[in-house]
């Protein structure tokens, strides 16, 4: 905020001639506008963003079941309980795993498809639509569809296994496999979104650069490696940013699929928050998870923006 006001006033200082500056535009021209337009936004922002965040931070120091007002101060015990909880460690690891898979599989897949579908070929729009379709689907609906696909009794997997004459795998009931089944759905669900970002990015690349590369005799790979990818840089950075933040907040896809089970093997931080905080009516513990998640997200978001997206 401070940074921003400084920038704005800085701009006005530089852009406005001396004479006008001394007449103080702030007092005469901007103040009424500020008084009229700032309070509604400030009020809403405070009411729905700042206040809940503050409340969550406050609750995290109490043992509270959600009724009445919290009275039992327990200090940092909720955080201690949290970091000693095996399920929360699993959730952290899973969140990390989802980020890694998003970055190593999903984003490259999206770039590859975008490069293919960025060309002007017949039928390309139809393919874009098909690949984008999973993203349009509601997360819960997608989760339910895949629960059926993976179902070992009546689902698609059961049918395929029956056809091949092998024993049906119950992937969602298998502690070791379930998380990979979830990861597959995550990739399926979100690669279309990243693909669309990249297609938009590709379309903004100047055609003449590509032509120049062709005239210089660049191969397909060289064109991609030395022309497309560098020019797509800002889009890649943005896409990675979305992938990381989205991965950290993954929830609605997992609940209908596994609900965090079996044996908490598919918990993420947010499903952990729901299972341990909300359904067990331990608002204090849930708030502590919320605070940890918030700190991780903010650190990553600002850190990433500062390091990788400085020039974008």
């Amino acid at each position, binding site marked *: 905020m401070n940074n921003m006001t400084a920038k704005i006033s800085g701009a006005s200082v530089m852009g406005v001639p001396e004479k006008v500056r001394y007449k103080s535009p702030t007092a005469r021209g901007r103040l009424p506008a500020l008084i009229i337009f700032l309070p509604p936004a400030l009020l809403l922002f405070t009411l729905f963003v700042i206040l809940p965040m503050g409340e969550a931070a406050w609750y995290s120091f109490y043992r509270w079941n959600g*009724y009445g007002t919290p009275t039992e101060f327990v200090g940092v015990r909720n955080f201690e309980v949290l970091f000693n909880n095996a399920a929360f460690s699993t959730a952290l690891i899973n969140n990390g795993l989802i980020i890694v898979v998003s970055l190593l599989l999903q984003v490259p897949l999206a770039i590859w498809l975008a490069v293919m579908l960025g060309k002007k070929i017949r039928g390309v729009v139809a393919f874009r639509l098909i690949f984008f379709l999973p993203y349009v689907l509601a997360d819960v609906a997608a989760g339910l569809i895949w629960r059926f696909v993976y179902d*070992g009794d009546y689902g698609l997997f059961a049918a395929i296994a029956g056809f091949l004459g092998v024993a049906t795998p119950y992937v969602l009931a298998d*502690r070791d496999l379930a998380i990979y089944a979830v990861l597959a759905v995550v990739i399926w669900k979100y690669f279309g979104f990243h693909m669309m970002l990249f297609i938009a990015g590709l379309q903004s690349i100047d055609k003449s650069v590509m032509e120049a590369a062709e005239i210089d005799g660049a191969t397909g790979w060289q064109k991609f490696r030395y022309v497309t990818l560098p020019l797509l840089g800002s889009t890649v950075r943005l896409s990675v940013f979305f992938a990381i933040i989205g991965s950290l907040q993954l929830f609605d896809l997992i609940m209908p699929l596994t609900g965090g089970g079996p044996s908490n093997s598919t918990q993420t931080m947010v499903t952990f928050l729901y299972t341990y905080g909300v*359904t067990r009516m331990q608002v204090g513990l849930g708030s502590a998870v919320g605070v940890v998640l918030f700190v991780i997200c903010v650190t990553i978001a600002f850190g990433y923006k500062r390091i990788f997206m400085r020039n974008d």
Partner: protein
Amino acid sequence: MTYHHKATSYTGVRITALAAATALSTLFGTHTATAAQTVVKWMHVETVPAYIKTWEDIAKKYETQHPDVDIQLQFLENEAFKAKLPTLLQSDAAPDFFYSWGGGVLRQQSQTGALMNLTEAMNANGGEWAKTYKPAAVAGLTFDDKIYAVPYRMGTVSFFYNKELFAKAGVKAEDIKTWDDFLGAVKTLKGAGIAPIAGGGGDKWPLHFYWSFLVMRNGGEAVFEAAKNKEGEGFMHPAVIKAGEQLAELGKLQPFQNGYLGANWPQTLGAFGDGRAAMLLGFENTEPNQRKNAGDGKGLAADNIGRFGFPIVEGGAGKATDTLGGLNGWGVSKNASPAAVDFLRFLTSQEMERQMASEGMIIPAAVDAEEGLKNPLMRESADQLAASTWHQNFFDQDLGPSVGRVVNDVSVEILAGQMTAEEGAQAIQDATELE
């Protein structure tokens, strides 16, 4: 999903008739049809359409007698209901009354002042209202000498088995008296290539019945009550540990259908109804519910299903006649209208409870309403309940939402071989101490 049954029942003809009636009443100045309406919001988790229909009919009957009352049924899915209720009860959108499993959850709600204290109303005129229910039902919904819910139904958890599959494997249900007999039956069934038990590890609570029963059979009432009230060794009592060890022993036999760790309760009932597993530890209404959840919608024929109580543990302090099961009531929110309370009395009256029993919906909490029970399996459950020496509410309800969920987790983990009996008992004890 909201059932506004008044709205749904307006067919074209009725709308015309109603319009005509309204016009007439306006003409002649009778104001019955235009009287101010008290809306009574009734929140439930029932999914069987026939049962909801029965409730709607009862509501309609009441509305005919009380034209100024409009009863609206509101449905929430079981898990969503449990998660949403705390918030709902503290908001303006609180239902007038809602389904309750009693126990620690109800106690917690009562302590926060979110519920209406029904003691005075029930005990008025020398306990005229309270006396219409079985004493155990009223007692189970009373905390600190205050009644916090209107008794509705009682239930027992027991084993149901597929007679055909038992005969095929050569297992006789009558011979299963002890836990060892039971393990023997599991082995025999397994040997015959039949999955012995349908288990719902995805929802977790279907499997916590095993741990609960074993704790009851090993320790008896004294040990459980002490543990619940944080006295003595609590859940680290040797009898509780032994229960865990026996559970682990069952788990080692791999007694459940394939993929049981991912199966929710409807799928579990389906596995039993499809004949994919021979036994199910379930509620008194298992017979109708397995039908609904079976792949073909028909399930097992009623005469193909037998029932036996949870076996005893040799040397354990618990008796074969100690029962585990539900005690359900209707919790009334603090600001509920008098009409809501009056309707509840009507809904749980002997006459209505008898009718619901005759439809196989419930084992009634009202006195002398059992004769309505026509379903023989339910009748058996009711008789077992009547002879109960100790009726224990579901552990995950009785111990409150937080410890209860840990019991559910632990039961599944022990069965799956992910946790030892000691680790499980320790986890539950830790959770109890945090309460």
